[in-house]
């Protein structure tokens, strides 16, 4: 491994509700996958699921909302931007130094 580390201890993933990824199912798949390499055999996984937050381009306010309710709850405008809840990324990795 590039960092000279011996094994992966912990992996943190962010998977928002708007990605379509089910954290429970991903955790179960990880149990199977981690056995495929010595480096990850003892790794653990945590999945953060950020709440859906939208920002209205009309009233400019941010609001938490449901994944299937993305119109502005304050002014009703549909022109909103998703600020959080659609991320699917590898957040951080903890590696053991041999």
């Amino acid at each position, binding site marked *: 491994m590039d960092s000279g580390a011996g094994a992966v201890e912990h992996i943190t993933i962010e998977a928002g509700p708007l*990605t379509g990824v089910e954290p429970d199912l991903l955790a179960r798949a990880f149990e199977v996958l981690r056995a495929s390499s010595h480096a990850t055999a003892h790794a*653990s*996984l945590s999945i953060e699921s950020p709440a859906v937050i939208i920002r209205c381009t009309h009233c400019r306010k941010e609001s938490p909302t449901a994944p299937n309710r993305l119109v502005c709850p304050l002014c009703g405008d549909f022109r909103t931007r*998703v600020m959080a809840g659609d991320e699917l990324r590898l957040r*951080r990795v*903890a*590696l053991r130094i041999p």
Partner: protein
Amino acid sequence: MCQTCGCSLNADVAREGMEEQLGRSVVIDVLQDLLAANDRVALHNREHFDEHGVLAINLMSSPGAGKTALLEATIVALGERYRIAVIEGDLETENDALRIRALGVPALQITTGTACHLDAQLVHRALHDLPLSGLDLLFIENVGNLVCPASFDLGQHRNVTLLSVTEGDDKPAKYPVMFRACDLVVLSKIDLLGVLDDFDPERAAAALRALGRDTPMIQTAARRVPAIAAWLNWLEQQMIERRSVVPAVPTRMAATAGA
């Protein structure tokens, strides 16, 4: 908590790991998109399409919403004016590709085995066997599924989702990821509306608007007496828009438009 299935394991191990191993472990912030590898190949596919002046459309829906039937009617209507090809995604069988080829249009079947969606790599591999030269329109008919296909960029220019009136009109509320990902919703099998008393196109449109998008919704009937004018108009509009972004190459489309 339950100890057998491991559901309580992760948090505990993580905490112990952080505290006990602190001197011997290193935590690295990565912040890498998990779909980065797919997105890179998708970008490559898109460059490939643009190079050949091809408009690529990713067709998605639940199984049986009428994707292949819509393509058949589209080929009959536009086949003389535009050169069309189709990539078909299914778990098994060549059936859909055979239906398309029967109309004289090249169709490449990807059988995904157990995979419930196409990804950029599968499409990329298919492109090696599908010459794009001279094509105007490439349809990628995704695996029938309203969940996973929404998450994978294939390199298409437009995503289209079919919602047949034999399904529930609350589908956009049930599958927000899919209906947020599309550029057009096609209400298909609209000719059956008369015998169905539980599908209201207005309710479907309201559920779609609730996703914070002004995605257009059009109606089609592809079998018996095809009524797909709105769909054909939309397609031609997209082709014109693509041509204004990507320099036109001499094809039939450019010739008919006088460009």
